């Protein structure tokens, strides 16, 4: 039993240091190291890829990663289910794309503009919608995604309507256009790294702890002075901004966008991908995004059965590993130790 030391007052804490606390911060450095290792390895993709098609898949996988990771931040860590993530993705794509096509704005400005416009929209939608809980939040965001798709289709003068937005310029460095898969890759690589780093840093901070606290126990979070609503709103806005960034990358790398990419179906699929990767894990979105991008390509040979096999694959993963792919090592370790004990 520990004795209560009378000298310590509640205010003396901030100056205090203990050896155990330094070990906490050392343990903290590891995910950053892993992030560096994985992204250095990814840098080899354009060199080892057999053809441009594989590089284009890598670009798409990293753009999907931004989408899945930002949704995971909102859903996995902050516990808020949004069905409008594809909508914010589309808003970013059309914002950046339309600015470029209609006004000749460079993608370098289009990308931050896409982030800001998606964030502003999320703020306006989040103010009423985040007061709703559980299924009602999902329904409100689903409605918002449906409205966005209608706008993408109907504002033909701006968006090109159902035919899609044509003539979008690629990113360019001076006169050097990033208009091939291999040329676009370093940019997508860098932006996805920065997004992952931002998420990691956020999670390892006071804000990250607050949003996880709100997700697990709002009463408890309230009791220590956390403004639950504001916390949810901040994460919602941030994740929408990241989806907007993904949209801008998407539209300038593909030089095209069309409304069906950003529908409610995509929003639903993204939620499933978060769950498959491992909701509330840092590496889950990478695994989920890889599977989400690669699986349809592998299944192309099966033509009509493709969608069915894709759904079946997702079902099997979620039934065998309900915690998602990122928790497979933990699950296996648990099985292994249990066997050894018996």
């Amino acid at each position, binding site marked *: 039993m520990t004795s209560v030391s009378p000298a310590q007052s*509640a205010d003396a804490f901030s100056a205090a240091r203990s050896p155990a606390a330094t070990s906490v911060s050392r343990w903290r450095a590891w995910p950053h190291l892993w992030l560096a290792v994985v992204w250095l390895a990814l840098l080899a993709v354009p060199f080892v890829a057999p053809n441009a098609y594989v590089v284009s898949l890598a670009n798409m996988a990293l753009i999907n990663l931004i989408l899945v990771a930002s949704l995971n931040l909102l859903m996995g860590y902050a516990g808020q289910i949004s069905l409008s993530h594809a909508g914010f993705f589309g808003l970013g794509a059309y914002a950046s794309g339309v600015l470029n096509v209609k006004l000749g704005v460079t993608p370098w400005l289009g990308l931050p503009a896409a982030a800001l416009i998606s964030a502003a929209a999320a703020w306006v939608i989040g103010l009423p919608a985040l007061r709703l809980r559980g299924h009602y939040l999902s329904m409100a965001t689903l409605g918002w995604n449906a409205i966005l798709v209608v706008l993408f289709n109907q504002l033909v003068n701006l968006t090109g309507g159902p035919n899609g937005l044509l003539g979008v310029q690629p990113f360019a460095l001076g006169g050097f256009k990033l208009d091939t898969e291999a040329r676009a890759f370093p940019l997508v690589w860098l932006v996805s790294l920065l997004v992952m780093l931002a998420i990691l840093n956020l999670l390892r901070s006071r804000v990250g702890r*607050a949003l996880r606290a709100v997700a697990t126990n709002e009463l408890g979070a309230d009791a220590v002075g956390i403004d639950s609503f504001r916390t949810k709103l901040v994460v919602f806005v941030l994740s929408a901004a990241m989806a907007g960034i993904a949209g801008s990358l998407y539209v300038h790398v593909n030089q095209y966008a069309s409304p069906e990419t950003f529908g409610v179906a995509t929003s639903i699929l993204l939620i499933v991908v978060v769950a498959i990767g491992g909701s509330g894990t840092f590496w889950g979105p990478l695994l989920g995004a890889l599977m989400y991008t690669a699986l349809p390509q592998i299944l192309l040979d099966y033509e009509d059965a493709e969608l069915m096999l894709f759904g079946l694959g997702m079902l099997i993963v979620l039934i065998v590993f309900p915690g998602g792919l990122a928790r497979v090592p933990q699950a296996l370790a648990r099985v292994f130790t249990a066997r050894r004990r018996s």
Partner: protein
Amino acid sequence: MNGRVSGGVNGNLLQVDGLTCRFAGVVAVADLSFGVRAGEIKAVIGPNGAGKSTLFNMIAGVTRANAGEIRFDGARIDHLPTFVRARRGIARTFQNLQIFRDMSVVENVMVGRHLRGSAGVAQAILHGPSLHKEERAIAAAAMDLLDRFGLADKAQMQAGALSFGQLKILELARALACAPRLLLLDEPAAGLPHADADRMSEIISGLNREGMTVLLVEHNMRMVMALSHDILVLNNGRRIAEGTADEVRRHPEVLAAYLGETEDA
């Protein structure tokens, strides 16, 4: 008693006046007035259904009063949401624990330290040296609290894996991490075996010796009588007695309320 704690109305840190709460016609708390002096341990006791929990929830901000005023450090707080009351300096524990189970033990306490940090989203994302320093200070403070309560070796464990008694102490540590001026304890001994309840008593009295003002609702009479400077006895939402342990113990209405409890129910 302690220079850090400033007094409010009549030197009371917490002042409750004419507080009333009705649920669908049933009066849970009726026109209740009392104060908690800075530096004292005050207990609220009473038979089941006396209105203790409702009173506690109104002070913490979970339940709204129908009438009356609650003042903390002289300022009205009855219209404020819970998190703002926490920011003013009121921390609490829960009768049925509200722990962040998926987070580690030390992270639970670090969340309690939330208000002592100032980093926003942008600073968190950029993770500059000032954030590093702040995070380090938060972690150090949390570890010191765990160390003090003998949970330091469990710091990296998932909180959900702790025993019930350890969770109660963890919740207290989390509340203390807020560096509150008033600590609200909702049945701190409930569900604890004798030895653990005694240890909880020791912890609470230790905190009080350092100047912490405590308001507790508790069924464990041994704890209440041993700890409290002042006891408020409620029955049917009204005050029937208020005073020291000895005064309350001999009060005829208190005796009647406790003996007559089975008839009321």
